[in-house]
Structures are given as structure tokens and as C-alpha cells.
């Protein structure tokens, strides 16, 4: 249990998807103008990551891994390694899952659906989702750990995007130099926020 909590805390703060790996920047920058939208996207990312990580883990372990096919087709498949299909499979899983989430949100919260607009389908290509799955494989986690890791990474992304969104709402009252307005200042901000997130780097819980 300690390990799981440790892993979650680590993936939220230490290995933050946005501020440590700089993944998922596109939606992070594009959907952070308003806090309510950012909130919705953040929660969607938590949701998607928590479920795609274990799903992809199952696929990796049971189909793609070297020798995984043995239990279905017998010994002659011991040397078959389908790792090269990893990217393809993971994206397919993520895409179908996002489609599913989209339908759920459309049904239950049309306002949120309206405000997320194009960005919900774009989660499919959100690098932090795919990154979550690939990191999870690299780290050699178990199924439970993979779920925890996915959840933690999602929360990390959520924290990053809502913090930025709240700041950007406040930034409306700032007098930013003309050339920097919009994305320019947001990139600078991201750098500064990453500096603040360095609080946790090297921390061992």
C-alpha cells in the first residue's frame, strides 16, 4: 500500500507530466484560458489516463510482450515479439476510449461538452495520455501500479492545467507587453511554474 501511495505522489508531483516531461503541451496551452474548461479537460484526462493505462497494460502483457502469444498458440510462438505494434495498439485503445468518454459527456453534461469542443477528441493525441502508457511499460509496473500511475499522472496534469488557467484568468488584468500577449506570456509562465514545481524533484517519500 505504501508503494502505491508513493507512486501516486511521485507521479503527481515529482514526475509531473507537464512540468517535468513537458508532455501534453498542446491542450495544456490551448484549453487553459478559462478555469471551468480547464477543469473539465483536466478531469477528462484523469479519467482517460486512469483507464487507458491498465487497459494498455493488459494488451502489452497478454499480446504484445515477447512470448505472450505462447498461451494461445503454443510453444512455437515463444520468440514472437509484437512490441513494434505498441504505438499503434496504444493509440487505438486510447482513441476508442476517448470516443466513449466523449459520448458519456455529451449525454450527461452538454454544457461541458460544448465548452470542451474540439479538445475532447484531441485528448486522443494528447501526448501525456500516450506518454502515460509508454512510461508505465518502461517502468515495468504491475497492473495495480499501472492504474495508480495513470491516475497520478492524470492528477498531475489536472493540477498543472488548473493552476495555469487560474493564473491566466488573473492575467487579464495584467499589462503584458504587446509582443508577449497570448501564448508568449503563457510559455514564460509555464517556465516559471515549472520552477515552482521543482520543489519536489529529488523527493523520496
Amino acid at each position, binding site marked *: 500500500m505504501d508503494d502505491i501511495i508513493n507512486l501516486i505522489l511521485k507521479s503527481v508531483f515529482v514526475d509531473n507530466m507537464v512540468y517535468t516531461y513537458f508532455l501534453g503541451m498542446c491542450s495544456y496551452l490551448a484549453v487553459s484560458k478559462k478555469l471551468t474548461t480547464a477543469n473539465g479537460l483536466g478531469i477528462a484526462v484523469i479519467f482517460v489516463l486512469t483507464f487507458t493505462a491498465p487497459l494498455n497494460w493488459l494488451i502489452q502483457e497478454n499480446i504484445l510482450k515477447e512470448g505472450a502469444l505462447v498461451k494461445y498458440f503454443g510453444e512455437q510462438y515463444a520468440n514472437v515479439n509484437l512490441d513494434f505494434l505498441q504505438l499503434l495498439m496504444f493509440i487505438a485503445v486510447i482513441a476508442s476510449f476517448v470516443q466513449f468518454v466523449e459520448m458519456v459527456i455529451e449525454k450527461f453534461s452538454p454544457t461541458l461538452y460544448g465548452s470542451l469542443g474540439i479538445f475532447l477528441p484531441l485528448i486522443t493525441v494528447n501526448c501525456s495520455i500516450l506518454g502515460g502508457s509508454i512510461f508505465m511499460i518502461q517502468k515495468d509496473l504491475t497492473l495495480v501500479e499501472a492504474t495508480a500511475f495513470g491516475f497520478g499522472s492524470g492528477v498531475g496534469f489536472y493540477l498543472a492545467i488548473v493552476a495555469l488557467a487560474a493564473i491566466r484568468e488573473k492575467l487579464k488584468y495584467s499589462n503584458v507587453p504587446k509582443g508577449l500577449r497570448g501564448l508568449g506570456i503563457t510559455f514564460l509562465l509555464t517556465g516559471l511554474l515549472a520552477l*515552482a514545481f521543482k520543489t519536489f524533484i529529488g523527493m523520496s517519500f
Partner: protein
Amino acid sequence: MKFLRNILDKQKPQFQKDGKFENFHYLFEAAETFLYVPNLVTKKKGAQIKDMIDLKRMMMTVVIAMLPCLLFGIWNVGHQHFLAIGNSASFLEKIIVGSKVVLPIVLVSYTAGGLVEVIFSTIRKHPINEGFLVSGMLIPLIMPPTIPLWQVALATVFAILIAKEVFGGTGMNILNVALTARVFLYFAYPSDISGDVWTYYGDKTELISGYSGATPLALGATTVDGTNTDEVVSLFDQYSATINQDGFYSLINMFIGIIPGSIGETSTLMCLIGALILIITGVGSWKIILSVFIGSYFMSFIFNLVGLNQFMLLPPEYHLIIGGLAFGAVFMATDPVTAAQTETGKWIYGFLIGILTIIVRLFNPAYPEGIMLAVLFMNVFAPYIDHYVILANKKRRLNRATV
């Protein structure tokens, strides 16, 4: 004082529109309002402003509140210097050595930052930002006395430029300017701002035997990995005994602040005097200061109960006075621009700073001092906290309203 007014009045037309030095209008304005309260009168109709306390005077109050820390810091740098090299010295000698170290840092920080400030205000045609009065003073106070001057200049320029001016100046920044300067140095030149840098030795290399310049936090951090099972308090005593200064790291000595550390942060007592000034004049929020202390006390109390290593078992009251916690709570966390703006938000904000400080201290061996990063981290989330406090407020009032 009349002649000063006369000079200003005489020069004024030159700096106004179509005058010779029109471009430097804001520079002149800064000097004028710095010396005299602006003679604005509010309009007959609409809101009336009775008090002429403007940003400049507010910021000056903060600078005044920092003076005890600065003066004590100057003496303490000298005191630690002579302590380390084993000479006894008079009060005056200590002050002289301290001034020699501290004043150049203050000067560099004000000059470098002031330059950026003036360039920006002249080009962007906005008044010179008063906030710089405070940042320029805060930066030296959170630097170790051995910091190279060029680094002070670099950090100040970086902080003023990236953390403040690009957002439009005082009142619009997101992160605390002084802390950004320190964090910048911390990550850019770690060797100059961590380890054995807290005492100024001058050109003396002959230190008294056993002297390592270890701060209480550094001593505590040695027990984190669990190999050292001595009580941290007894480590303090041991260290005090090795350098022949009984009670060097005793509770009372650390409270007064006669210990190595950043220039202005060692003395909890002086910080509290500063806090008193800030609270009485209404410049700083007592809620934040109090909740930072409560938060860190609470968290260290919890870790006392957990007690995985000796550093966790350190009595909570020690945590309040070692390191820069008091300084951070009084001068950094209360920064009205970057702190939470709502009243409930202030409690949450301060409390989380306290909690985070202790967590960083106990769990992050890379950074012995937690308050710096804790405040910065909460700066990031202050707008988020505010947003939800306001939402909750709205909801409560909507519920109360009967239409």
C-alpha cells in the same frame, strides 16, 4: 525642506509634456512622489479618499519592517565571521565586517534591479514600480553572505524582468519576485547557495577546529537516511560543544538568531518585530503569518507521531525557529500581490505553505530549506484557491437569498 520643494517645482515643467526631458517624466515623478506625498485631491463627486497612503508609502513600511532584520543581519554576519576564525572582536568590529559584506550586496541588488526598472518604465511609459523598493531589499536578505556580487545582479535582473516586468510590473506578477531571484540562483548556481556558504570567512582559511558552518537544518538532514540515530537536539548540542560554544544551537539562541544562515533570515525575533510593524500598519496579513506557523507546527506535530527518522522526531517548536520559516512567513508569504486575495483563501494558503515547508524539509534531501519553494509553489496555486473560495461564497449567498 522648503528648498527641496522649490527645486522640484522648478524642474517640473522640463519633465512634463513638451518639456526637454519628457521621456524621463516617470523618473521625475518617482523622485517627487518618493519625497513628497502626491498632492492629488479626489473629485468632489464620487468616492472620496481621505488617506494619502499610496503604494510607495506602503512599500516603505515593508522596508522599515525589514530594517531590524537587516541591522541584525549585518551584526550577525560579523559575529559569525569572528566566531568561525576564533578571534574575539568588539561590537564595532563585527559591524564593520558585516557592513563590508552586506552593504555591497544591498547596493548591487538595488542598482541592478533599479536599472531594469527605469529602462522599462521609460520605454513602456509607466510609472516606476514601487514594488521594487521591497524586492531590492528582500533579495539581499535571503542571500548567503558569501554570494558573489555578479550573481546577485544576475538574479535580480532575471527576477525583475521575467517574474515582474513582463507581466506589467508591480501588482501584476504571479510569483514572488525576491523568491524567484533566489530560486533562479538555487537552480542555476547551486554550489554558491547551498552547502557551506552561510558564514563569511574573508580571506581567513584557518578556522577553529571542528567548525563546519553546518546550519541546524543541515544537521537535521543528516539523520534522514536513518543511519544516524542520534536525536537531532543532541546533534545540535554536540555541534555546539565541538566549536566550544555551549548553547550555540539552543532554542533561545536560534530564536534570537545568532546562528549562520542567509543574511536576514536567521533571527526569528527580528522577523516577529517586523511582523508586528506590518500587522499594526495593516500592510501584512496576520492571517497568513499565523496560518503559516500553525500549518508548520501542525505538520511537524503529525510527523512527530509518525517518527520514521530522528529529523521527524524533532520537537515542533524547533521547526518554527530554525531556517528561514519566520522570515518567509512574515515577508514572503504576505506579499499582497502573489498571496491569496480572499480572506478564507489566506488561511488555506498560509496553512498549506506551512505544511509544504515541513514536507520539503523532511523528505527532500536536496533542499534543506523548504519555505522558499513552499511559498513559490503556493503562489502558483493562490489564484486557484481564490477562485474556489469566491465560488463557495457565491453559492452560499445564493442559498441565503430568497427570491
